[in-house]
């Protein structure tokens, strides 16, 4: 028992914090896929861009890390609005293959840009002092960083829940996801809602990139390297289902962490085995039809 408890607490704490980061990054992808059926393989670009900005701005502008993180999020949000206008909007109505090719091409171009500007190595990331301590839980030490990640996740969840379930905006957005042509028929400007949802998704990805840098190191290859993980979340969530994507992210985080802990040699396989089983079992998404 005294061996099982620490292992279980470890897997819970690390798995949940990992899952939350995956959720925050992937939620934008879930939304855009649900809303516009656009397969955006370049979504990780927003996460890595947020991370690079947030860890470079403090030394450039002499601001605190939190301020820098917020500024970076807003900057990524604005960049995504522009990109949506000039690039992603043109992808609506294209075939899936064309969308995949265009967005993966965009992803590669961005990787090359980051390599050009910052070199091919990982970015040195240092969180502020108050985040790098430890705390005791059930007779052992855990890094405060993981708790900070979970706290960020809770705040974001609360905000999303209020936005989607308790505002007109949220209701309209859900209507657009569920039945786009009907939404259009009732006079909803679906394109505008898409722009806003896209920007929110990009902003959240930026937060995920910043907060998650302790787990997913920032490097130019980031948007491509972690794409399978993000797509796993999307595939298991079903179209535009935010609640499902939270559950899926946590399950993936926990399974991945437990897998790496118990069978490190097969660490990469556990989560993808899960993907195969779940897709065969529930091809519409894990919580499809569940309201």
């Amino acid at each position: 028992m005294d061996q099982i408890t620490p292992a279980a607490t470890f897997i819970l704490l690390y798995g949940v914090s990992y899952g939350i980061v995956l959720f925050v990054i992937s939620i934008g992808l879930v939304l855009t896929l649900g809303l516009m059926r656009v397969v955006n393989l370049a979504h990780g670009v927003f996460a890595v861009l947020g991370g690079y900005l947030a860890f470079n701005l403090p030394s450039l502008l002499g601001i605190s890390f939190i301020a820098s993180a917020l500024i970076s999020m807003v900057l990524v949000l604005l960049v995504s609005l522009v990109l949506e206008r000039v690039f992603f909007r043109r992808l609506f109505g294209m075939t899936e293959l064309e969308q995949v090719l265009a967005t993966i091409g965009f992803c590669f171009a961005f990787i090359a840009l980051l390599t050009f500007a910052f070199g091919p190595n990982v970015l040195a990331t240092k969180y502020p002092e108050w985040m790098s301590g430890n705390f005791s839980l059930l007779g052992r030490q855990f890094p405060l960083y993981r708790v900070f990640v979970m706290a960020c996740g809770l705040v974001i969840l609360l905000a999303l829940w209020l936005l989607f379930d308790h505002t007109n905006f949220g209701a309209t957005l859900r209507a657009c996801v569920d039945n786009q042509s009907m939404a259009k028929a009732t006079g909803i400007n679906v394109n505008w809602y898409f722009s806003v949802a896209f920007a929110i998704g990009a902003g959240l990805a930026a937060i995920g990139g910043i907060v998650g840098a302790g787990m997913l190191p920032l490097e130019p290859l980031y948007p491509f390297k972690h794409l399978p993980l993000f797509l796993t979340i999307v595939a298991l969530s079903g179209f535009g289902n935010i609640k499902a994507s939270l559950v899926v992210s946590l399950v993936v985080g926990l399974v991945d962490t437990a897998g790496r802990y118990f069978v490190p040699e097969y660490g990469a396989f556990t989560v993808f085995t899960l993907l195969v089983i779940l897709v065969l079992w529930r091809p519409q998404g894990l919580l499809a039809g569940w309201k």
Partner: protein
Amino acid sequence: MKRRLLKTLLVSAAIASLAPFTALAQQEPIRIGIINHDTGPFATPGREIRAGIDIFRELNGDTVGGRKVEIIYRDMGGSNPATALRLAEELIVRDKVSILGGFYLTSDASPAAAVINQTNTPTVLFVAASPTLLTQSPMFVRVGQNIGQSAVAAAQFALKSGKRKAYVAVSDYAPGHDVQRFFRSAFEAGGGKIVDELRAPLNTVDYAPIAERIKNADIDMLDIFVPPGAAAVSFSKSLAAQGVMKQNLVIGMGEAEDSDLNLFDDSIIGFHQALYYAEALENPENKAFTAALKKKFGADRSPTFPAVSAYDGMGLIYKMIESQKGKAFDGKAAQQAALGVTIRSPRGALTIDAATREPVQDIYIRRIDKVNGKLRNVIVDSFKAVKAPVIAN
């Protein structure tokens, strides 16, 4: 009579015009083919290899044994055995190079062995470190390291420091397996016990669960081998977060060289590495090498082991060319001339073992510390004239 004179004139003119050609034949440049990585995932060490070659030519000139040395670079663009064979063929057959150099990865060299053996082209392996690589071709000579040299030194240092209970954690690819094997056999031979070992997939992102597993084992030291860059940063941070870095001797190979230390935070302090080069070496060759490097590429540039390996690789190639001075270049004879020689390298003395064609060299144990407010690899121990170890698979 007139006609005869004309003939003589013509003949002598012809001979006169030929004369410079025979003189030129001796002065004809000799070509060296370098198979390197200018693009792709290994572009960073590829850049270092080029820098090492540039510095060598800056300090030693581009003429040796009366011949000008021309270098032809070819880009692998990533790990690709088929490309390696094609490039070696093109360099030898079409570009008529006399010697091949470069070879960052083992898989850059072994596919080329066939064409190298057929043409008796001397081949200097700059960095490729697989222990079995030299059996592929009698023309291969190595100037980097046999990976077992550092792995065995790491085990001996741990034993010397009184450690007896080891955990071995390596990346799941051939060099990782080699390190695991060499470390295990040397550590056990010295009376140590391997408590547990694991192979982490190369695509591992979050190393926290692995660090947790290591933390829960009853050990007093940890030997690791992961590629530099994202994996090394992530793994070392996870180890530090779990307290493994402070509570145990943690020893690696090239995860946190001085040139990469800007990627790490202070939690890396105390991490040990065993390798055949150390930036902190005080010998005159290293000082000259470092000064030339900083002069050419800027004060921020730090010397690295691929750069030093390339520098020494060029040194060996120049010795091969010099041995053929005034003769038609004979590949086999040139390679023989390189066996047994000692080069005064930035890493210290480097001897090519005549029997095994492996480098014999000192292995340095470095510990990361804060020196004048900056992270640095400080030499804490060294093993003299280490030969390539031999163990059964």
